[in-house]
């Protein structure tokens, strides 16, 4: 059953319309705008849920003439991401109502969050790669605005710039990848397409019906673009999903208000990268293989490295939000690695963990917000024993962090098991060095266990004496966190049925074809298989190492302080370098001298044009084409006079002499038009030339007789540049006049302009005039003429303003 196009479009449009109305609503509702925004998010998620299991494609014609249409595609994965964006959106908006109490800039805050939500829904639903890119970058822009919410704080400005710089430039790499794919598609399909999936004319095809993936892959390999395209898309995904070494923006992004961190930087926006990987997986991962070339090693390597390193960094964190940020990067690494594995279980890992991670991490962020809000500090060392003050929050945290640690029977355990399974199977199949994969996976998971328990320990242990009085959190903040914790519990206890019914279509979205009789299922282990053993090792290792947490914490901090190992150092130095370059370059390029600009532009044009002719080999057939002088004598003479006139302008000793000789040029051009059979031009040129002369004389009357002495060296240099330009023009004219294009357009006008031989009283399809030039001006191209007379009017207005209103600015 196809999704309802009106409903899907409404889901996309409502957040943006809602965002536009926020300033008005804020004036009426004030701080309660949060609940207005929550209503909008609830509306979106309700509409989305109404389309559940109506998987399919909706094509909305946009610019039919250019074959551009908006292609919306709903399947399990799109539904999940859309539901996360709108569903968690509801909770985050409610939570914001409490958290943002008394904060400045609330109208801006809710507007941006709603725009973000709409863009994220766009990323989820749109499969036309160009529209996808637009929504993708919109989420980056929204994230930039939200991270920089506290505009006065330097740190938040630094953080927002960093996030913008990394994610947007990553997006540009991705765009190049998309363009390459669109280019390649034209060799495989009839005509190029940017639609990824869901239509006959798409890169992947319609799952289960048409598939082009194989042919596209083949074409990419043929043209040597396979590795570049995957690499470019990977850069886009890695920057967005904070993979090593692009993870550095995520911890800084914690400068944003905590609801933003929970929403954008854990549950949704950073999921865009892994979503992209999952979306593209069917295109690049064939059926029945253990490892897809390039794809598997790139993403498994990237994912496992990120998972492990970011987990270690999380252990070294001193701030609760920093800990959660690194942990987010680590879990995104787990998802990336999952999608990287070519077997079905890889897709299962990625799909299931997107859901699990969104649930427990959003919960923990909301908890972090509550702690910061009520205890007034985010420092891990300064916190402890919070269970006495906030028992409910402690329970919520226990559920979420045990899930994050991957302890059975919580839901985090299942997706971690799937990863272990995938790593083990791949290593088992290939042997040798690939045995490192399960080892690294376990190693990284131990650190995950460690920091999860450390976060939970904020609520246990002794309460530091310097910790002041702690209030109970307001209901608006407690409720969303509680709802999320209940969701985690439901996911944990109902893992088997949920996986069977809800996650199954999500997994299928990342598979090119589903094996016969396949159905995704998870269950608690009842036999000691290798993945189970790996989990046992993880938990046992974690418990054994927990007493040494502080030592690990300080050790990793020492490692981090080595400049050579810190991507932040490279980033900062790079930015300083760029700033330095942009400081130095203008000194040579932007000299404030018209001369420099003109010389650079004109020489560059000449060099490129001449170079192009040389490379294109135009010169060789040019000598043949030059067959001798074929111009009538009168025209030749007139043109010679024109050149003499122009030469006289160059050598004019005074302004008056220059203007008069310039007129010689103008009038000879008019005569040229007469001889070139262009009577209208000749008339106009003649009259305009007279007016120009009058105008020049009027102005020169008021200017001094300055003409600047001509230095020899400069004259020679300028002469060289001018000669170069002249040579380029000469060759260009020779080349272009030698060509003989069909005169289709001219012919059309000559046919259509006059009154036709047979006609009625009213003529509308022909121009109805004999002067073709004028008919073109007033009829066929009247809109152009309209524009041109507006330009003339604009020039008059500009002059009016320059002279007539010159005193206005100073008086005001």
């Amino acid at each position, binding site marked *: 059953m196809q999704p309802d196009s009106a409903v899907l479009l409404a889901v996309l449009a409502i957040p943006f319309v809602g965002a536009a109305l926020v300033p008005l609503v804020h004036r009426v509702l004030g701080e309660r705008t949060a609940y207005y925004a929550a209503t909008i998010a609830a509306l979106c998620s309700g509409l989305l849920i109404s389309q559940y299991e109506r998987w399919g494609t909706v094509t909305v014609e946009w610019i039919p003439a250019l074959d551009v249409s908006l292609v919306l595609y709903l399947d399990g994965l799109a539904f999940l991401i859309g539901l996360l964006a709108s569903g968690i959106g509801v909770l985050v908006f409610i939570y914001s109502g409490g958290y943002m109490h008394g904060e400045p800039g609330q109208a801006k805050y809710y507007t941006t969050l709603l725009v973000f939500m709409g863009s994220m829904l766009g990323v989820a639903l749109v499969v036309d790669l160009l529209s996808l890119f637009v929504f993708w970058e919109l989420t980056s822009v929204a994230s930039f605005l939200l991270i920089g919410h506290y505009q006065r704080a330097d740190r938040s400005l630094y953080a927002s710039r960093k996030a913008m710089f990394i994610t947007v430039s990553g997006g540009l790499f991705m765009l190049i990848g998309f363009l390459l794919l669109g280019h390649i598609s034209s060799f495989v399909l009839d005509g190029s397409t940017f639609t990824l999936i869901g239509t006959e004319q798409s890169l992947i095809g319609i799952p289960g019906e048409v598939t082009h993936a194989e042919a596209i892959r083949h074409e990419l390999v043929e043209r040597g673009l396979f590795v570049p395209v995957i690499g470019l898309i990977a850069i886009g995904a890695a920057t967005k999903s904070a993979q090593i070494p692009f993870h550095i923006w995520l911890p800084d992004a914690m400068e944003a208000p905590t609801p933003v961190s929970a929403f954008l930087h854990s549950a949704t926006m950073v999921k865009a990268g892994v979503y992209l990987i999952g979306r593209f997986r069917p295109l690049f991962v064939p059926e029945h293989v253990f490892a897809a070339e390039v794809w598997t090693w790139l993403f498994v390597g990237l994912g496992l490295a990120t998972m492990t390193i970011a987990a270690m960094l999380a252990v070294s964190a001193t701030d609760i939000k920093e800990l959660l940020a690194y942990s987010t990067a680590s879990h995104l690494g787990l998802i990336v690695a999952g999608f990287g594995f070519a077997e079905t279980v890889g897709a299962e890992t990625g799909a299931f963990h997107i859901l699990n991670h969104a649930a427990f991490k959003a919960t923990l962020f909301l908890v972090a917000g509550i702690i910061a809000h009520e205890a007034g500090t985010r420092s891990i060392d300064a916190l402890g024993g919070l269970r006495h003050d906030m028992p409910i929050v402690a329970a919520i945290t226990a559920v979420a962090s045990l899930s994050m640690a991957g302890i059975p029977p919580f839901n985090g355990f299942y997706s971690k098991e799937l990863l272990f399974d995938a790593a083990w199977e791949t290593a088992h199949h290939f042997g040798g060095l690939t045995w490192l994969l399960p080892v690294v996976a376990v190693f990284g998971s131990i650190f995950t266990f460690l920091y999860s328990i450390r976060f939970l320990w904020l609520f246990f242990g002794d309460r530091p004496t310097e910790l002041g009085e702690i209030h109970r959190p307001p209901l608006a903040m407690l409720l969303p966190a509680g709802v999320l914790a209940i969701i985690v519990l439901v996911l944990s206890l109902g893992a088997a049925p949920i996986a069977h019914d809800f996650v199954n279509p999500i997994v299928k979205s990342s598979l090119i074809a589903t094996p016969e009789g396949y159905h995704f299922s998870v269950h608690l282990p009842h036999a000691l298989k290798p993945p189970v053993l790996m989990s046992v090792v993880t938990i046992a290792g974690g418990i054994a190492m927990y007493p040494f947490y502080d030592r690990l914490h300080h050790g990793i901090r020492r490692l981090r302080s080595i400049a050579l190992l810190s991507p932040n150092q490279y980033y900062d130095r790079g930015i300083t370098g760029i700033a330095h370059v942009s400081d130095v370059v203008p000194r040579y390029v932007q000299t404030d001298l018209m001369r420099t600009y003109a010389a650079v532009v004109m020489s560059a044009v000449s060099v490129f044009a001449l170079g192009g002719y040389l490379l294109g080999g135009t010169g060789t057939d040019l000598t043949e084409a030059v067959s001798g002088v074929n111009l009538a004598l009168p025209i030749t003479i007139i043109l010679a006079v024109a050149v003499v006139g122009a030469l006289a302008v160059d050598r004019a000793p005074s302004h008056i002499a220059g203007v008069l000789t310039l007129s010689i040029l103008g009038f000879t051009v008019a005569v040229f038009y007469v001889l070139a059979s262009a*009577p*209208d031009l000749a*008339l*106009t040129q003649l*009259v*305009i030339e*007279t*007016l120009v002369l*009058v*105008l020049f004389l*009027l*102005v020169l*009357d*008021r200017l001094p007789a300055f003409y600047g002495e001509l230095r020899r060296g400069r004259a020679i240099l300028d002469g060289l540049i001018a000669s170069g330009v002249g040579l380029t023009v000469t060759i260009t004219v020779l080349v272009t006049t030698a060509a003989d294009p069909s005169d289709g357009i001219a012919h059309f006008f000559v046919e259509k302009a006059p*009154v036709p031989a047979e*006609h*009625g*009283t*009213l*003529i*509308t399809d*022909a*121009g*109805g*005039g*004999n*002067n073709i*030039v*004028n*008919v073109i*001006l*007033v*009829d066929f191209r*009247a*809109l152009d*003429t*309209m524009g041109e*007379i*507006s330009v*003339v*009017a604009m*020039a*008059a*207005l500009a*002059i*009016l303003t320059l*002279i*007539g*209103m010159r*005193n*206005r600015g100073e008086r005001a």
Partner: protein
Amino acid sequence: MSSNNQTTVIVRTVVRSVVPIIVLVAIGLLLQGHNFPGGGFIGGVLTVTAFALVYITYGAEYLSQNLLGISDGSVARRETQDVLDPDEAFFSGTVGRYSAVFGLGLALAAGGGLGAIAFGEPFLSQAVLYFDHIPVFGVIELASALIFDLGVYFVVVGSLLTILAVVGNE
């Protein structure tokens, strides 16, 4: 230019008789543009030269006061500057009239185009009414494009006159 012009009697006499002819030719060119050389652009610039000739030989005051009958703020701008707001004087005078002309022209051109929409045609479509075998005239051709051409004419005349007047008044 200054008002104490030193043009000779010959020039003054010639200009006096030539200017009407120029204006006549300009209007002729405008009207015949559809079938012969001419049109709004050419007619417009030619009309402006007629004004320019008067301006050069007789001066700006003569042009605006005696010929166009505008009691002017802009020509006497220098004198009234202390009393009047110079900007207001500037725009209420000749220059203001000139700029109204190109506004009118733009409105004509666009309005003529909008007329086509009323008949269900695209913006700026033109039509021709063609009557054969009319006594005396023979053939009469009425082109809606003439309205657009008139618009072009007024824009060109208005803009160029504005430019000349502004620069000349300095």
